[in-house]
């Protein structure tokens, strides 16, 4: 646990009973929040808990429907981003807020005083001070768009420091960082609060909240469900803190622990047979090279490997979205190598893309339409080319019910739902009709803990229902949790397939770094 700085007396910024409603959702519901100088305040909650909405209210992007905001004890209205900055509240948003076509210098001076020429010498002097105090260096003349997301985030932090902020908000700042980058950010936050800043660190990752936060506030469905003060946190060790927070987040500690249980073992002859599958790609990594495997009903075959080693190409080749150069795909004795996407779907081969919004759904269309997106024109939802909205709606309502999709109703545009709920809709769509083989590509990517667990359980249940599952994932834990066998993919090739039993982790590790198991 980091050394805690002495608790400060009065909050810089205080939210009292703030509420924000969006069409169909109560995003933030009567939340109180006090930000103290010298403290990293971790704000924890699953996707859709209302964290970003809270940030938006603090940074002047939206105004609360009810409740008050106090800055240094006095009631204030934060009606615009400008007003927030004037109150000393700086924000590093969840999505980068830099202009990619401008240089780093230009982004730093943006909004400072638009009638005056930026004074480079003065800026460099202040940057030197920041460098010596916080250890951040920037190359001022780089075009911002060419920098990595981590570097862009540093620019935003430096910008906040240049503005002499009193409060710095970091919304999901670690989601685009590597684990070591996250640790560096943690150390930086420590230095920032030492200098007297109040830091708000927003995350949906439990361990980060416990590791970096002096105080932890937990949000759930827009409501504040608990707060752990520094006094209490300091008294616990990390495991106890995690336990405590899990309890707050889910109301039930067992959820995060529960491992999917598999009821049945794979049986019978392979339903999907892939032999020598080769797909040419633009780069050395983005291709599939001589891949062969069998998949039996009731079996989950995991594909492990570092992202970008041909996994997506393999999935798309199986789904029929990519042309196969050589090799064959056989589904239940029938060669489907040249069949169209629709034909494969009809035969029971289903594919869940990792690109849920870009490829899997039409964000602006209602949930109902998205449930029948792959059956446009086909009965029973269309008859003679005419759409039957009643049929589609009742079908959608049934799926929403069965898969526990959290949505106001079936007419809500799917893009408004959280990632976990979009995932449920897509899964519901893919499993409807006669599904026999399901290909998942990174199904839990970007979801929060609770939805990850629910998804894994659902995948296990699918296999238990005697469907064959190909599970592509970059998360080894996930594969070890549910898969029967695990193959490792590197540079487009399967370097080995191992049974998921004792010692599987070590053998997969060896395969991943290129040694035989």
């Amino acid at each position, binding site marked *: 646990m980091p050394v805690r700085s002495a608790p400060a007396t009065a909050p810089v910024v205080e939210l009292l009973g703030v509420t924000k409603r969006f069409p169909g959702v109560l995003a933030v519901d009567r939340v109180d929040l006090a930000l103290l100088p010298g403290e990293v305040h971790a704000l924890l909650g699953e996707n859709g808990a209302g964290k970003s909405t809270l940030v*938006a209210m603090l*940074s002047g*992007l*939206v105004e609360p429907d009810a409740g008050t905001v106090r800055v240094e004890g006095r009631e204030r209205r934060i009606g*615009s*981003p*400008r007003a927030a*900055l*004037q109150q000393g509240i700086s*924000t590093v*948003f969840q999505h980068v*807020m*830099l*202009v*990619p*076509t*401008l240089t780093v210098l*230009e*982004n730093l*001076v*943006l*909004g*400072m*005083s*638009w*009638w*005056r*020429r*930026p004074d480079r010498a003065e800026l460099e002097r202040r940057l030197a001070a920041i460098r010596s105090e916080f250890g951040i260096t920037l190359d001022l003349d780089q075009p911002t768009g060419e920098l990595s997301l981590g570097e862009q985030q540093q620019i935003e932090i430096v*910008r906040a420091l240049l503005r002499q902020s009193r409060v710095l908000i970091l919304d999901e700042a670690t989601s685009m960082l590597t684990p070591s980058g996250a640790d560096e950010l943690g150390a930086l936050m420590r230095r920032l609060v030492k200098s007297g800043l109040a830091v708000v660190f927003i995350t949906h990752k439990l361990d980060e909240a416990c590791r970096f936060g002096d105080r932890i506030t937990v949000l759930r469905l827009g409501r504040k469900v608990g707060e752990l003060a520094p006094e209490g946190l300091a008294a616990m060790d990390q495991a106890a803190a995690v336990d405590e927070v899990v309890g707050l987040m889910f109301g039930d500690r067992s959820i995060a622990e529960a491992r999917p249980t598999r009821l049945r073992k794979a049986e019978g002859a392979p339903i999907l047979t892939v032999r020598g599958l080769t797909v040419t790609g633009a780069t050395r990594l983005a291709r599939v090279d001589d891949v062969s495997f069998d998949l039996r009903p009731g079996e989950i075959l995991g594909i492990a490997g570092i992202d970008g080693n041909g996994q997506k190409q393999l999935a798309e080749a199986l789904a029929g979205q990519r042309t196969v150069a050589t090799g064959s795909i056989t589904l239940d004795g029938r060669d489907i190598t040249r069949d169209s996407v629709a034909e494969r779907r009809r035969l029971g081969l289903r594919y869940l893309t990792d690109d849920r919004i870009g490829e899997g759904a039409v964000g602006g269309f209602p949930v109902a339409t998205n449930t029948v997106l792959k059956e446009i024109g086909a009965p029973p939802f269309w008859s003679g080319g005419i759409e039957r909205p009643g049929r589609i709606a009742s079908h959608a309502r049934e799926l929403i019910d069965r898969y526990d999709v959290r949505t106001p109703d079936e007419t809500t545009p799917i893009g408004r739902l959280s990632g976990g709920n979009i995932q449920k809709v897509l899964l519901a769509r893919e499993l409807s009709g006669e599904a026999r083989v399901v290909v998942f590509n990174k199904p839990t990517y970007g979801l929060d803990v609770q939805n990850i667990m629910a998804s894994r359980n659902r995948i296990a249940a699918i296999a238990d229902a005697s469907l064959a599952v190909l599970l592509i994932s970059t998360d080894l834990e996930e594969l070890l949790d549910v898969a029967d066998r695990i193959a490792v993919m590197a540079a487009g090739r399967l370097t080995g397939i191992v049974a998921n039993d004792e010692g599987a982790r070590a053998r997969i590790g060896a395969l991943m770094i290129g040694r035989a198991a």
Partner: protein
Amino acid sequence: MEALLTAAFLTALLAGAVAAGVPLLLAGLGEQMSEKAGVLNIGIEGMMLMGAYLGFLVAFESGNVALGFVAGMAGGMAVALFMAILCVGLGLNQIVIGIGLTLGVEGLTALLHHFQFSTTYPRLAAAWRLPVPGLVELPVIGPALFDRHPLVYLAFLLVPLLAWLYRRTALGLTLRAAGEKPAALDVAGIDVQTVRFLAVLFTGAMAGLGGAFMANVAAGIFIPFMTGGAGFIGIVLAMLARGRPAWVLIGAVIFGGALSLTTALQVAGLNVPTDLIQMLPFAAVMAVLVLYGRKARLPAALGLPYVRGAR
């Protein structure tokens, strides 16, 4: 054929290119400012026409051409005000509103002109010229470039001035940010709507001035629909210029030259069908678009209304 290569012909050709090119230059520079800030200002044709109409009317009634220019700018800005309120303030579709405004102004000016002058087309006295001492003595380019109305010089001076503004000043930075990523500008503390509003008004002023130049200097007369697509060519120039005022100038010279050549060839009485010659400027637009259209890089948020906090 030799007649085409005499000094007199070349002078006339170049002079014509300037007369036709200056309104395009002003319109293109104006449009460029809007586009930089993220507003596709399709209403510019209407703004030019309003500038031409009001500019001519005031100059004719008051006998003061300078006052006419002021009125022309005001006319262009008045139309731009509608564009700004509807498209920036209310976030309505920029293409629909722009086309609507253009059609509206075309009808309105034709109607007003008909009421005021019926079918007569009164003329203004020949425009005032300000020869540049020394330079005016140069052969061919002297009389064509340096013996012109002051507005011509002003239009050319605007090119380096705007280039400096865009590249070197914080205001230029602000404009570019408004067109590339308005949300980033907003959270940096500058109101995107204000920036866009002012940019659209500037476009209106430039377009109105260009229109007034057409009526009061180049033609000396107002005819309904006289801008004849100059505003739209201005849009093409701004789009092809990749944000650089100098490229707007080059484009304006090419298109102005094509327009001027049309007139010159007709005057020279070449044995070519007039329809073919009149096609020239438009063929030039097409050729340039085919050659360079794909290289045009437009601001990422061009044409998209900005709504704070939306997602």
